[in-house]
C-alpha cells in the first residue's frame, strides 16, 4: 500500500460517519463514500502533497453530495433556508427515543444547514475549514450553523418558532 492509499484509507471511517449523519441511511451513505473515494482516486494528481488529506476528501464529498441532491426529483429536494417547515412533534421521553429523534430531526434540516452543523459539531472542523470544504464565506458558515442549531433545538424540544434569528456579528 503506498502513502496516498494509506492517507485516504485512514479517513474512510470519518467519511462514513459524516455520510451516515448526512444521509441518515447506511447504504446511501456508503454509496456517497464510494463515489467520493472514486473521485478522489481519479483526481489524486490534483492533491497537493503534504496538504490536509482529510479536508480535501471532505471537500470532494460535499461536491459529490450536492451533485446528488441536485439530481434528485424536486419533491425530494426540500432544501430551503429556514421556512415554515417545522412542525414539532412532541417533547421526548427517554434517551433512546431522543437519539432516534435526533436522527429524524436532522433529516428536517435543510441540506446546507445539516452539512455545516455536522462538519462543525460531529467532524469538529474549524469554521475556516468548514467554509473551505463547502466553498462558502465564513459568515455564511456562522449563519447556517446558528440556524441549524436553533432549528434542531426547536424540533427536538417541540417549542414552536422561538429563538429564530440572531444577528451575527
Amino acid at each position, binding site marked *: 500500500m503506498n502513502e496516498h*492509499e494509506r492517507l485516504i*484509507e485512514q479517513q*474512510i*471511517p*470519518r467519511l*462514513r*460517519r459524516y455520510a*451516515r*449523519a448526512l444521509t441518515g441511511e447506511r447504504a446511501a451513505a*456508503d454509496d456517497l*463514500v*464510494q463515489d467520493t*473515494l*472514486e473521485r478522489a*482516486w*481519479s483526481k489524486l494528481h490534483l492533491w497537493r502533497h503534504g496538504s490536509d488529506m482529510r479536508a480535501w476528501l471532505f471537500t470532494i464529498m460535499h461536491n459529490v453530495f450536492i451533485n446528488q441532491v441536485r439530481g434528485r426529483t424536486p419533491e425530494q429536494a426540500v432544501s430551503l433556508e429556514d421556512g415554515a417547515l417545522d412542525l414539532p412533534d412532541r417533547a421526548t421521553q427517554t434517551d433512546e427515543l*431522543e*437519539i432516534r429523534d*435526533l*436522527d429524524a430531526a436532522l433529516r428536517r434540516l435543510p441540506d446546507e444547514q445539516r452539512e455545516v452543523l*455536522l462538519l*462543525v*459539531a*460531529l467532524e*469538529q472542523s*474549524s*469554521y475556516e475549514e468548514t467554509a473551505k470544504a463547502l466553498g462558502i464565506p465564513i459568515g455564511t458558515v*456562522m449563519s447556517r*450553523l*446558528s440556524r441549524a*442549531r436553533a432549528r*434542531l*433545538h426547536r424540533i*427536538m*424540544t417541540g417549542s414552536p418558532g422561538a*429563538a429564530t434569528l*440572531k*444577528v*451575527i*456579528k
Partner: protein
Amino acid sequence: MNRLPVTESDLHAYVDSTLPQARGAEVETYLASHSEEAERVAAYRQQNAALHALFDPVLDEAVPERLRTRRARWMKPPLRYAAVVAWVALGGVVGWNLQAYTSAQRTEASTWARRAAIAHAIYSPEVRHPVEVGADQEAHLVNWLSKRLGAQLRAPHLGGIGYTLVGGRLLPGERGPVAQFMYQDAKGQRLTLYVRANADHARETYFQFAQENKVGVFYWFDRRLGYALSGEVDKDELLRAATAVHSQLNP
C-alpha cells in the same frame, strides 16, 4: 477591563470549544448573567454530544469491502490502457531476444510471467465481467478451455487457503490460446492462474518468481502445461497459493 461585546459567533465558538482561553472566560462571565443564552449554549453543547453518541459508533464499524478494495474497482482507465500498450509492445520485445536458444528460453519464460502479470492487471479489477464463464459452470469452463488449448486442464480448488474460483476466460497468447482462471478471497483479493500448453515437453521447471510493478508472479512448467499464478499479495502468500495449485495438479 474593556471587553468586546459577546456575539452570536462567540457563543457558537464557545459551544465548540474553539475560543482562546481568555475570550472563553469572558463568554462565561457573560453567560452567568444571561440565563437564556446560557440555556441555549447548554442545549447546543448537548446537541454536539448527542451527535457523537449517535454517529461515533460508525467509526468502529468494519469498513465494507466495496470501500476498501481499490484494486477491485478503481484501477483507472489510463492504467488499463498502459497495460494494453505494454501487451502490444511485447511482440517487439520477444522478437529482439532470439539470439541464442538459452537466452531465448529464459526470455520466453520471463515473457510468459510478464504476460501473465499484464493479464492479471487487466482482468482482476473487473467488477462486472471478471470472467467469461463463471464458476457456476465449472465443468463447462474446464471442458471449453481444455478443448481450445488442446490439453486437459483442471481448475484447482483453493478453498483450503481461502480462495474460491470466480471463473475463467480464454486469451490470445504468443503461441496460441491461453486460459486464465480467477480466484477471489473473502476480502475480494484476486489471484489469477494463467495456463497454456507447453510445447517443449522436455522442459520442466521449479517455481520462479517475477515482479511486474505491484503484481507478483510465480511461474513454472510441467511436461504438458505452463502455469503462472499472479496476484497483488505478498510473496509468501502467493507462494502458499502456488504450492497449493502445484500440489493439486500434481497429486
